[in-house]
């Protein structure tokens, strides 16, 4: 559509079509009239637009003849040297534009004057240029050099206006020039020019959206601007270009909050609505744990107005607590609320509304009340403002009724209010009505019912109906009132009352036989079809309450049947059918009569209904089966209708937005995100934190739903590269290790670690590489023999999908830079399952023995390797309770390039960490590939998210070149999947690294019986239960494959189970010791249902997702 409108051809058409409306009044000024004839000639003769002017338009005298003449006149004036003539000509041209006339053929003459000295002429030329440049792109280019010169002017205002016009000319060819100009202006000395640059950004973006990345850079730069002048405009640009890049706001959040009060009104609105969205992604919901709020001693501190709004030191940032701990508001959250509150007193309705919606969406319940007063104040404003505000109040009053109750009277209706305002006020009054104020409200309603405005009266009657359903105490009063209205002289009122009474009666029909009788009498008088239909339906539905009257009504209706409206006829048929079923003795003939009449009705709906009803109720030979159930069909108890506000649930749209008003998503509407369940790292808003924190947390945020598999977004800081890469390799490594374990039912608890260590050993001993190559060859051969279907998907990375243990180490090899190289690194198959493999692989002829966990201290690599070798057995003795290796395998902590020769990997050993059972023990593998020994390896000042703590490994004094070593450290992840960031220090260097645990590593297996399992599971239902459906691939239908995959994905213990297709696993989270129960029920077809129960809902959700993924491979 937009494109279409820009076609030059369409222009003339619009203008032509509009021209009849534009004939000026007689009162138009003199020069205006002089202008008229020529304006009317503007329709270009070559107009081909579809909506072009009708041929032979009466006010179009011979276009071809006089048009050029008149325009020559203007052109002549523009060509003179006299500014006054030029000005006069330009004024006439602008007047033409203003009226929607086409003046595009003057373009060349006008554009010449772009460098005119007279400032008013110049301005008018700009107006013209901006309007027509799009249509005359080539000629418009002539003017560009003038603006480019202007961009270099020493006067800031001239620079700004040059940029403004330049960016407003929608000519795609000059995009590069615009880009350059914007970039330059963004670093201009003058804030006014920078503001203009911010304005230009969305213009350029709408012209060429490919420039997005570059524009985002400019936005990022301007967001850092500290002047109030720029703030509003750049946030506007941000909202139009990249509203999803919420990460750009972190660093500027506090600054924006503090500047807010001094920004001009328009900017305030935009900033506030953006910050609302931001806060929804960054802070915890203040309404959770509402009851605990009072007991929280810290609340007073944070709630006090005197508190310094300054940023807290990074260390004391409010901890991101798990849900059960008392809620403490993030100081940044508080800062936003405090700094926006004064703006409730702004003179601008838009600002007040913006603050109101911010409070509604972000503030704790106790504080939302402050906005009511300000909103009520807006009700005195223009009626359009009232309209919008009332819509929002209506939505708010459903959720927070108490807030507006003190202002009930402010919503009273005056007879002079426009109807649309009246109806909205009525809506609010209805929402506010409760047990205590209902008498007053009803008295008001009584006044409204006598209004002259019938639409409003109808709405009032419905409002009374709603009050009656909501407040049981007044139901009878309302009903009586409505019954009285039945004797009203206005038929519309009566009809509306009947409809509402019908709804009310449905709730308690038994007591109201009298009313139904009264209604039955009304059928003689009332003519409104809807009301008649309602009465008939009521009588039919409750015919047992009025057994004497009902047949009589049917008799009357049968007589007037042919004259009735369609909906009434349908109800007559209904009534007849119902009476036939309950009282066939009296009504059999009547019913047949009605059905016969209906059979020949003009309306096919009625004919259909009659045919259908006859078949259903009149027993016949064939239709016997149905007619036996006819009573059930017709006289089934029907649920009472619920009278609900149309504003219910509208608050899922951001209040105050266009979408909320329309109750439909408008183009470009940004969803208001739900509160996060766990607060993201608050330290991102600290302005002084080093780069890496920001980046890694940004990734985390972007990939909220799958925090494990965060992709690096290509702009990671150098120090972060290690983390990113390892994250990249994760999914693959997981799949690999799954395939590895898929065929074993019982692998050692330390097998994962041993695999890795062995592999590491392998790397160290390059001499062994040949052997491993041989092993590879064997593997390849063997793979050919494998059934093709099994584990087919796990072959990525080039390793064999042998359905067995061979491919295990390829997960690690993926970390290596080059593909082929990984083959060399591939260790020999080390956890052989079948005899055959063991025979082939000499290395595995180590005597089987159950190996206890290796000591959690650093051991020499060779020793470690030896020890690991011992564990790699297919010993069937290991209890299946013990889980196999961690799914995550071994991951890179620090790449050897980034680490200047020091390569660090880590893996989760799944052993209890000695000293603190709440810690996850992490094995850290160091290897020195540099020339010099690395000394004094230790962990430096950890920068940890709240709640996470680290038990450091003992300092490694020296690591000789080529040597590798392993250390064990403990991390208490606090039952969250947040990354633990810390520094790895050597004597000379510090590296920023982070460990992010897969959710499966945050728990330890527990042993329980099936009965215990069931008992525990029954306690954790509802919110604590996550159910997922999945289809098990062929590869994992067997018992041990499933068990293995699950235990690989998560450190859970298997619960022995009776049935064969049921799998039960149990564990406890490490920090809080909450139970995590996982049940998988497989059906023969491969479909399966996974149920995870845990108090920790986040963990349960993540775990379910992981397990599904592990199983689906």
């Amino acid at each position, binding site marked *: 559509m937009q494109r279409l409108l820009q076609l030059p051809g369409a222009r003339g058409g619009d203008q032509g079509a509009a021209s009849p409306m534009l004939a000026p009044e007689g009162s138009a000024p003199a020069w205006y009239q002089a202008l008229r004839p020529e304006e009317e000639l503007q329709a270009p003769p070559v107009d081909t637009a579809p909506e072009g002017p009708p041929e032979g338009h009466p006010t179009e005298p011979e276009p071809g003849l006089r048009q050029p003449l008149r325009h020559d006149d203007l052109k002549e004036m523009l060509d003179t040297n006299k500014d006054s003539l030029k000005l006069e000509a330009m004024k006439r041209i602008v007047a033409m534009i203003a009226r929607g006339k086409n003046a595009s053929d003057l373009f060349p003459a006008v554009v010449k004057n772009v460098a005119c000295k007279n400032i008013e002429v110049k301005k008018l030329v700009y107006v013209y240029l901006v309007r027509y440049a799009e249509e005359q792109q080539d000629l418009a280019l002539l003017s560009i050099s003038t603006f480019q010169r202007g961009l270099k002017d020493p006067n800031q205002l001239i620079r700004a206006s040059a940029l403004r016009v330049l960016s407003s000319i929608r000519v795609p060819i000059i995009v590069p020039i615009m880009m350059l100009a914007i970039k330059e202006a963004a670093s201009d000395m003058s804030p006014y020019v920078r503001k203009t640059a911010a304005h230009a950004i969305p213009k350029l973006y709408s012209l060429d959206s490919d420039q997005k990345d570059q524009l985002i850079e400019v936005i990022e730069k301007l967001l850092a601007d500290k002047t109030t002048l720029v703030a509003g405009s750049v946030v506007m640009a941000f909202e139009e270009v990249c509203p999803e890049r919420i990460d750009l706001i972190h660093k500027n959040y506090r600054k924006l909050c503090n500047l807010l009060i001094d920004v001009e009104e328009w900017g305030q609105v935009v900033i506030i609505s953006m910050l609302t969205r931001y806060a929804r992604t960054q802070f915890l919901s203040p309404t959770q744990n509402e009851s605990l709020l009072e007991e929280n001693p810290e609340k007073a501190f944070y709630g006090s107005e005197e508190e310094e709004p300054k940023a807290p030191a990074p260390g004391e940032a409010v901890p991101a607590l798990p849900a059960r701990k008392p809620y403490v508001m993030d100081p940044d959250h508080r800062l936003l609320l405090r700094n926006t509150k004064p703006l409730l007193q702004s003179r601008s309705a838009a600002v007040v509304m913006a603050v109101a919606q911010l409070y509604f969406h972000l503030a704790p319940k106790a504080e939302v009340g402050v906005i009511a007063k300000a909103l009520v*104040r807006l009700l005195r404003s223009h009626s359009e403002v009232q309209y919008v505000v009332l819509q929002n109040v209506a939505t708010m009053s459903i959720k927070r009724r108490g807030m507006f109750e003190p202002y009930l009277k402010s919503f009273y209706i005056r007879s002079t209010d426009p109807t649309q305002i009246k109806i909205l006020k009525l809506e609010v009054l209805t929402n506010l009505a409760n047990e205590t104020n209902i008498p007053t409200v009803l008295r008001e309603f009584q006044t409204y019912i006598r209004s002259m405005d019938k639409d409003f009266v109808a709405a009032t009657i419905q409002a009374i109906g709603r009050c009656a359903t909501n407040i049981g105490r007044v139901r009878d009063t309302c009903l009586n009132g409505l019954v009285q209205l039945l004797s009203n002289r206005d038929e519309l009122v009566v009809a509306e009352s009947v409809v509402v009474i019908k709804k009310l009666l449905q709730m308690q029909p038994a007591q109201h036989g009298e009313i139904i009788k009264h209604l039955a009498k009304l059928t003689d008088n009332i003519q409104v079809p809807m009301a008649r239909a309602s009465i008939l339906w009521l009588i039919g539905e409750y015919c047992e309450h009025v057994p004497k009257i009902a047949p009589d009504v049917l008799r009357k209706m049968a007589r007037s049947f042919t004259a009735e409206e369609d909906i009434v006829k349908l109800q007559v048929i209904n009534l007849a059918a119902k009476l036939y079923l309950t009282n066939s003795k009296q009504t059999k003939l009547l019913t047949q009569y009605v059905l016969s009449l209906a059979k020949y009705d003009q309306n096919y709906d009625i004919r259909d209904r009659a045919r259908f009803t006859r078949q259903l109720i009149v027993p016949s030979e064939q239709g016997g089966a149905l007619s036996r159930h006819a009573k059930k069909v017709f006289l089934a108890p029907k649920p009472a209708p619920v009278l609900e506000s149309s504003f219910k649930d509208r608050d899922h749209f951001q209040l105050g937005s266009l979408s909320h008003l329309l109750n439909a998503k408008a183009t470009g509407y940004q969803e208001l995100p739900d509160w996060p369940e766990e607060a993201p790292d608050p330290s991102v808003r600290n302005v002084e934190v080093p780069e890496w924190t920001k980046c890694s947390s940004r990734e985390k945020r972007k990939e909220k739903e799958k925090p494990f598999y965060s992709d690096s977004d290509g702009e990671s800081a150098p120090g972060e590269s290690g983390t990113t890469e390892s994250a990249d390799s994760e999914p693959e490594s997981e799949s690999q290790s799954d395939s590895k374990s898929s065929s074993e039912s019982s692998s050692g608890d330390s097998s994962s670690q041993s695999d890795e260590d062995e592999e590491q050993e392998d790397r160290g001993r390059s001499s062994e590489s040949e052997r491993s190559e041989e092993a590879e060859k064997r593997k390849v051969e063997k793979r050919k023999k494998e059934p093709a279907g099994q584990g087919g998907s796990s072959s990525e990375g080039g390793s064999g999908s042998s359905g067995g243990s061979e491919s295990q180490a390829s997960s690690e090899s993926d970390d290596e830079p080059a593909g082929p190289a990984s083959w060399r690194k591939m260790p020999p198959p080390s956890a052989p399952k079948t005899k055959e493999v063991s025979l082939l692989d000499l290395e595995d002829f180590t005597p089987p023995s159950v190996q206890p966990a290796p000591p959690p201290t650093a051991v020499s690599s060779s020793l470690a390797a030896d020890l690991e070798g011992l564990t790699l057995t297919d010993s069937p003795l290991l209890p299946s309770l013990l889980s196999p290796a961690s799914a995550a395998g071994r991951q890179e902590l620090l790449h050897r390039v980034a680490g200047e020769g020091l390569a660090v990997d880590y893996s989760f050993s799944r052993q209890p960490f000695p000293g603190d059972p709440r810690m996850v023990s992490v094995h850290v593998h160091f290897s020195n590939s540099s020339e010099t020994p690395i000394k004094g390896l230790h962990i430096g000042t950890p920068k940890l998210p709240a709640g996470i703590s680290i038990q450091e490994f003992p300092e490694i004094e020296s690591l000789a070149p080529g040597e590798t070593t392993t250390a064990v450290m403990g991390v208490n992840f606090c039952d969250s999947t947040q990354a633990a960031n810390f520094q790895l220090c050597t004597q000379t260097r510090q590296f920023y690294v982070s460990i992010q645990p897969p959710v499966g590593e945050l728990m330890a297996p527990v042993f329980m019986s099936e009965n215990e399992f069931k008992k525990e599971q029954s306690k954790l239902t509802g919110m604590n239960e996550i159910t997922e459906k999945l289809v098990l691939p062929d590869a994992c239908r067997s018992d041990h494959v499933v068990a293995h995959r699950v235990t690989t994905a998560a450190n859970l213990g298997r619960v022995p189970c009776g049935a064969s297709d049921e799998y039960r696993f149990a564990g406890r989270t490490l920090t809080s010791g909450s139970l995590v129960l996982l049940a998988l029920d497989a059906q023969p077809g491969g479909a399966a249902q996974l149920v995870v129960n845990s108090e920790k809902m986040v963990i349960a959700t993540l775990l379910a997702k992981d397990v599904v993924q592990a199983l689906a491979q």
Partner: protein
Amino acid sequence: MIHSLFLINCSGDIFLEKHWKSVVSQSVCDYFFEAQEKAADVENVPPVISTPHHYLISIYRDKLFFVSVIQTEVPPLFVIEFLHRVADTFQDYFGECSEAAIKDNVVIVYELLEEMLDNGFPLATESNILKELIKPPTILRSVVNSITGSSNVGDTLPTGQLSNIPWRRAGVKYTNNEAYFDVVEEIDAIIDKSGSTVFAEIQGVIDACIKLSGMPDLSLSFMNPRLLDDVSFHPCVRFKRWESERVLSFIPPDGNFRLISYRVSSQNLVAIPVYVKHSISFKENSSCGRFDITIGPKQNMGKTVEGITVTVHMPKVVLNMNLTPTQGSYTFDPVTKVMTWDVGKITPQKLPSLKGLVNLQSGAPRPEENPSLNIQFKIQQLAISGLKVNRLDMYGEKYKPFKGVKYITKAGKFQVRT
């Protein structure tokens, strides 16, 4: 943001269009006309209309529709507020916001709209800045312009836009330095049939007219600031001072502006200065009815109530009215069915009343509701809430300004149900 603006008069002519982005065809207004037709009454045209490709947000001011075209999500109040600001600016520039005034000054209007929005986002909306950029037309200036060929566009650059106080221009100079404050209070009330108050509150504003040289810093204090329940401020007022000391401290804009508006809540008892005795009845099955109203003063604190007007929207079945006022004059418009009685002052000795017969359409059923009476009045030299300005201090400039405060109480939305 705001894509285009169309100005439409009551008869449905689009007499001005302005586009800030690419051009939107006038035909988009057809949706508006459709809605207008459906609404029957100008007041009931929905302010926001959704069309397949655009959203139309409109306001109705001074018999003109300002219809703006929106393409993407934007807070509707943002646009409504802006459109009203445009209308206010026209009012400010041309003394009235009418079709004739806009057509007469179409070039200035266009220049103003150009400055007010950039790419649909408000740029300069403060009237002080705009007046620096584009001089308002005066008779003298237009004469001079037509002779000398000089222009309305200011040749100075708008420095105000750059400063921290965008509402005030630099280098203001007056020979007489004056500062006037008008405290205007309006009573909003609904009085029920029996004369008791259903709802009443006071809405007040302080309008200022400041003609002071240089950069004065003013502070205005009240005798009883606690009265002010809910206040909204001009952006120049320092919010912190108000919060802590209840003093209005500000560097004023030059000229006329609204300093604050406030509300005195209904919790405080509001004195209602007039009472109305009324008896309106329509007889069943006859084509006439009785109409009798009397107005009297009440709790007026010794001041005279003046400028009283009573407006009644009579039911549709009323054909004509034959009334005799004891004071003032009345008119009845048989088309709109509006009866207006211009009473004037109340003298307690002889209460003004209006009596007579109402002619109804014969055969039509009698109206079931009596019309409500809308009453306007004025009381000079009184702020009904009791608000009093204590003192005005000026800092930052040496001269001694002349200061004045005026109080006035008016009826706002004052309605008597009958």
